[in-house]
């Protein structure tokens, strides 16, 4: 870790001192969040005490004691503009859920071919859901976090290439990406620490995905599809899926957002077909009263199987933009966990609050 940081800093020093044409920009985001479970069932059959799992992939879990750690984070982005369309971006994130160990979560080079097309290569956030690739930037969305029932997948980064398009068709703004890559997570946090409670290596190979986003005035739609090959090792032993060493996942997503002057409606509908369908959806209704934005959200996860994984969350909250670069948020979440064998964290009612800022 220190080596990586050192390497990044060295590169930056070279750019700072050596290249008169290299422009370096620092920007960042921080969330200081706290919360606790007000009441919860836990999962007695798995010895899980009352818990609110606010973020699956990084296991942000709140208990009945107030904690500031699960969702607090500090992110720093360094962008080196090397002129003529070439740039390098690195993002270092320190998360409370990982004891604030700073890791490089993004590192990619970007080349702007023309005003419409940009090619990026390196390590990036996987753009599965609408909010996936800026999940860590709390300031950019209204809630404490994008609805947990939807954002449940264990892999959230990929190493590969991404072609990014931005343009216009008539009055419509068009954005799209096509990406290809893989991620080999030697000790996946969600699977190792929460679900299987033993070291689990999770591999997503041959990820091939596309995103198309169209926007006009108050209307926005985002369509996405991605396929990948999943391999898994538990305690070093390869897991077989229906007798096979790998299985194919197919992800489909539609998000529609309506944003009028003050009223807004945010929706997502997703399906992961992984030897059976796993469906997630959410809807949010919010209203901006100047700097105060109250909202309500309903989200759910449903596995198409007998006693499959099934949970839903109803949330109400308020965002207050009390400063030009900072927002205070408070949110109440009520989770229903329906499954017995595939129970996640049980039913719970929780309160979380915090400050998001960008610089």
């Amino acid at each position, binding site marked *: 870790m220190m080596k990586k940081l050192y390497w990044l800093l060295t590169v930056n020093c070279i750019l700072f001192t050596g290249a008169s044409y290299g422009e370096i920009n620092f*920007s960042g985001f921080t969330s200081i969040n706290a919360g606790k479970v007000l009441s919860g069932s836990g999962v007695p059959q798995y010895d899980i005490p009352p818990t609110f799992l606010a973020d699956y992939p990084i296991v942000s879990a709140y208990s009945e004691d107030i904690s500031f750690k699960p969702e607090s984070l500090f992110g720093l982005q360094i962008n080196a503009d090397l002129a003529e369309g070439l740039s390098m971006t690195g*993002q270092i994130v320190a998360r409370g859920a990982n004891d604030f160990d700073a890791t490089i979560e993004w590192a990619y080079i970007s080349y702007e071919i023309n005003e419409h097309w940009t090619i990026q290569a390196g390590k990036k956030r996987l753009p599965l859901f609408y909010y996936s690739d800026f999940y860590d930037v709390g300031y950019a969305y209204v809630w404490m976090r994008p609805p947990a029932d939807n954002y449940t997948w264990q892999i959230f980064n990929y190493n590969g290439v991404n072609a990014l398009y931005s343009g216009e068709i008539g009055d419509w*703004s068009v954005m799209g990406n096509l990406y290809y890559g893989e991620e080999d997570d030697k000790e996946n946090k969600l699977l190792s620490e929460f679900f299987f409670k033993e070291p689990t290596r999770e591999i997503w190979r041959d990820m091939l995905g596309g995103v198309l986003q169209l*926007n006009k005035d108050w209307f926005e739609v985002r369509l996405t599809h991605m396929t990948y090959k999943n391999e898994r090792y538990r305690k070093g032993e390869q897991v077989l899926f229906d007798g096979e060493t790998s299985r194919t996942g197919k992800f489909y997503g539609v998000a529609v957002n309506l944003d009028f002057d003050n009223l807004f409606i945010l929706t997502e509908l997703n399906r992961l077909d992984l030897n059976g369908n796993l469906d997630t959806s959410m809807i949010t209704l919010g209203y901006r009263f100047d700097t105060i934005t109250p909202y309500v959200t309903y989200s759910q996860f449903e596995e198409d199987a007998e006693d499959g994984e099934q949970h839903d969350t109803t949330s109400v909250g308020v965002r207050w933009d009390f400063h*030009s670069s900072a927002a205070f948020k408070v949110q109440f979440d009520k989770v229903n966990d329906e499954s017995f064998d595939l129970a996640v964290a049980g039913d719970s009612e929780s309160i979380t609050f915090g400050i998001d800022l960008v610089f």
Partner: protein
Amino acid sequence: MILFKKVFLSLLLLSCYSVNAEVVIIVHPSNSSSFDQSEISKLFLGKAKSFSDGNQAVPLNQDESSAARKEFDSNVLSKSGSQLKAYWSKLIFTGKGSPPKEVGNDADVIDLVSKNPSMIGYVGAASLTDSVKSVGKF
């Protein structure tokens, strides 16, 4: 009579407001592209990168604290400062775009736009000079 007073007062306030509040969109005198509010918005939101004549467009913002910036955000982009910051945060931290460069005041904007045919900016209506071309008042 009270009603009349109220109406008169609000009319008076409204007229003061609109006189003080107007911003003028400016480009280089040689720029012959057409502009409307939607096109100007797209340029300042990074959704379009060229003028209607096909030439590259470089939008110039004013500092967050300036009066012209506040008027521009609300009259032209129809969004609050916080909404715009959230919008740009999403693009910056996903590697999809970066916001327009910011300069200090009306005089700086006029100076830069008068020297560069690619630039587009905005200034308070009272600051407008002959060295730039006005393409809209909001």
